[in-house]
């Protein structure tokens, strides 16, 4: 009689860590982790030793010292007596301003150029190709420098506006002054202002919220909400009766009447720029450094976006266009309502990386003296305090956070576009 025995229980041997696929991956991972930790430990150890030798231990205390330098473009209140931290905050805001402005205009120009590159007009298509190739194949640093130089050289200086017979005049009924120091446009002023709410007391993060702006935004939001209600009601009527009631005048009224009432109550009027002393005073002032950087970044990035848009449009099958024209839709509308929405799915992923590139390229602001975060924290602050390690690490962290936020937002948007797909 034979007895069946279980196969002998497999003993764990050390070599199984390498040759048994069950354990091998764990082994490799442990080794990788160990290597990484060793590397990190080595770097940290070196850094500690070097810093000790230099006598500069890591210390962020300098951030609460007064910065002692001025920043020309400041979105919040700032003087040279404020701390380095607040100066860095001003820089961060300036980075965000140029990044947001740049992304918006780059998208608009890019879509426009991308569509025009496919234009049936030979000359226009060629010009757009020349534009795209010119901008894509020359470094962005050069474009930034050139944009600034062109602005400075070709626009009139404020002193050209002075005197009996000035060589330059203000545009648009004397309300806009375009100079080589920047552009001055009228600003909104409120004679019966509601005042500000001041937050965070005296700290470096303090800021004011304008109640006037808040009121305007609230009224605008309410108006839009009411307009949508009216539109929904009209749609319901159309569903029920087949007749769409005329609502455009109600909508216009809803949009403008409350706003007009609010602005009158607040005593809204324009503040015009005026030439006083060395410069124009009053009005909103966009500095030449901002304009040059904004222009160069948007034109440069737009060249890349144009290519993406063109590829996206070409990816949509010809049948879509033909079907649209069979339905009697005009070419312009076909592009807007049929092609672009579909192309969007192909376009958005590479667009994200272009937005990221634009934001990162904004760090070249230093070339035109725009005080972004690289110019404040990574520039003057670093120079004056000699705290390279702290400043560079924080600078990288700031950009990393901005980049990750942009990716997160754009990925969320990408997913929401994808959901429409069937």
């Amino acid at each position, binding site marked *: 009689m034979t007895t069946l025995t279980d196969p002998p229980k497999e003993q764990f041997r050390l070599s199984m860590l*390498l*040759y048994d696929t069950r354990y091998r*991956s764990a082994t*490799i*991972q442990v080794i*990788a*982790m160990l290597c*990484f930790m060793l590397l990190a430990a080595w*770097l940290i150890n*070196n*850094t500690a*030793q*070097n*810093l000790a*030798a*230099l006598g500069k231990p890591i210390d962020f205390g300098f951030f609460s010292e007064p910065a002692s330098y001025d920043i020309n473009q400041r979105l919040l209140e700032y003087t040279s007596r404020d701390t380095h931290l607040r100066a860095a905050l001003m820089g961060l805001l300036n980075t965000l301003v140029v990044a947001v402005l740049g992304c918006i205009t780059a998208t608009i120009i890019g879509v426009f150029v991308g569509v025009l590159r496919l*234009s*049936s*007009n*030979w*000359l*226009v298509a060629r*010009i757009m190709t020349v534009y795209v*190739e*010119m901008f*894509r*194949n*020359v*470094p*962005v*640093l*050069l474009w930034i*420098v*050139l944009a600034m*130089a062109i602005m400075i050289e070709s626009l009139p200086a404020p002193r050209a506006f002075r005197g009996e017979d000035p060589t330059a005049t203000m545009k648009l009924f004397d309300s806009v002054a375009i100079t080589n120091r920047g552009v001055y446009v009228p600003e909104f002023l409120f004679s019966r202002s509601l005042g500000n709410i001041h937050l965070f007391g005296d700290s470096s993060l303090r800021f004011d919220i304008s109640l006037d702006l808040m009121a305007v935004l609230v009224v605008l939001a309410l108006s839009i909400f009411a307009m949508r209600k009216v539109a929904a009601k009209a749609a319901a009527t159309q569903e029920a009766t087949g007749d769409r009631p005329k609502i455009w005048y109600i909508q216009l009224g809803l949009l403008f009447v409350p706003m007009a009432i609010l602005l009158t109550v607040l005593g809204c009027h324009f503040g015009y720029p005026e030439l006083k002393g060395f410069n124009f005073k009053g009005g909103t002032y966009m500095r030449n450094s901002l304009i040059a950087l904004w222009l160069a970044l948007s034109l440069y990035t737009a060249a890349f976006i144009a290519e993406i848009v063109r590829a996206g449009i070409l990816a949509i099958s010809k049948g879509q266009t033909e079907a649209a024209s069979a339905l009697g839709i005009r070419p312009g509308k076909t592009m807007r309502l049929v092609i672009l929405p579909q192309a969007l799915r192909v376009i958005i992923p590479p667009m994200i990386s272009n937005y*990221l590139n634009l934001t*990162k*390229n904004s*760090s*070249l602001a*230093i*070339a035109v003296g725009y005080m972004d975060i*690289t110019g404040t924290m*990574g520039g003057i602050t670093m120079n004056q305090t000699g705290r*390279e*390690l702290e400043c*560079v690490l924080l*600078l*990288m962290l700031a*950009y*990393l956070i901005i*980049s*990750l936020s942009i990716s997160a937002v754009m990925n969320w948007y990408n997913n929401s576009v994808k959901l429409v797909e069937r």
Partner: protein
Amino acid sequence: MSDVSFVRTEMLPEKAPPASEVGVIGWARHNLFSGWFNSALTIVSIAAIYYVLSGVFPWVFQSVWNADSLGECREIMKATWGSTHGHACWGVINDRWEQLLFGFYPSELYWRPIVSLILLLAALSPILFADRVSPKMLILTTAYPFLMVFLMWGGTIWGPLSAAFGFVIAYLIIKYATEAVGELFAMIAGVAVAVIWWLLLSGPIVEALSSAMPIGIEAVASRKFGGFMLAILLGVVAIGVSLPIGIVLALGRQSDLLIVKALCVGFIEFIRGVPLITLLFVASLLLNIFLPPGTNFDIILRVMIMMTLFSAAYMAEVIRGGLAALPRGQYEGADSLGLDYWQAQRLIIMPQALKISIPGIVSTFIGIFKDTTLVSIIGLFDVIGLASAIRADTAWNGIYWELFAFIAFLFFIVCFSMSRYSMYLERKLQTGHH
């Protein structure tokens, strides 16, 4: 009456199409004036072109080529045209073009970077024009990195040779030890022996050899590198070195090993999330702090390290795209042949994935190449840095547009031809897949 026919029996001779439909006029009607909107666009475009060209042309062509200083330029302009505005002073390019191209590289040794560049093209030809160039050229491709280092930096020939020898050792060990101890072990052993060779043995051996047999050419310190040559060198080194790193990172990012994947993703996203200028700040300000006390790299070498890390992250993403574009069947086919992971990668996956990735790699190269201009911000003398230095010379103080126009022209030529090549390749690859 029967001969009266109401129907024409013979064909009418063909008439030439109306003049408005053929030739230049027809073409213009179709392509430029096919509607009122198109006509308006055309007229606006022509006006814009005229405006730009009428400004640029006189400046470029009514210019001064022979002058030794800006002052002399201005005098010649005043004498010739009566004013100094609207005329370029190319004298500065005439005077300094060698410096703009080669930096401070000794002028009697200019042949070395030129030969390096020609050899680079030759070494790349079997990859870039795979269908036309014999694969035997791949030997040159393998030897090129060492050859380039030798040519550019000069010095003793034993240094590059011993560095190459390390690779040979690793290769031999992997090849012959695989049967004995298995692939993974052989690979680890090969790499370990090579590292030991480079770190411990090669230094003294090179010293001994070069004192015994001093074969070499004049050494050039990397301080002297500059100008457009520096941009090309930085770009080539960054892309060349980052290719293997990028492959490893891309494979790591695709792998099932959680920790390996996390490390790779962390590295890639970190590098892609920060601007290059901050990495260059690290190179110029912090890298010495991160390395053991007393180590002191040349700034150009430090910049090369950071640019390599930078391009490795982008390269990894390009190669990941290539891997993702490969049909699933290729992986399954490799599995069904019983190939293990590394064999499958080496023999089936990578050759195809890399081929698909070439256009992406070329555009990464163009990007890196343009980004090398940023090194001027940390004080290196690339073309833009040199332009500032030239303007600081008393003779050329005050000159502006000419230098930037020249630099932009150089970059445009190189980048444009590369992007055209990449487009040609894309078209070729596309037909290959249909």
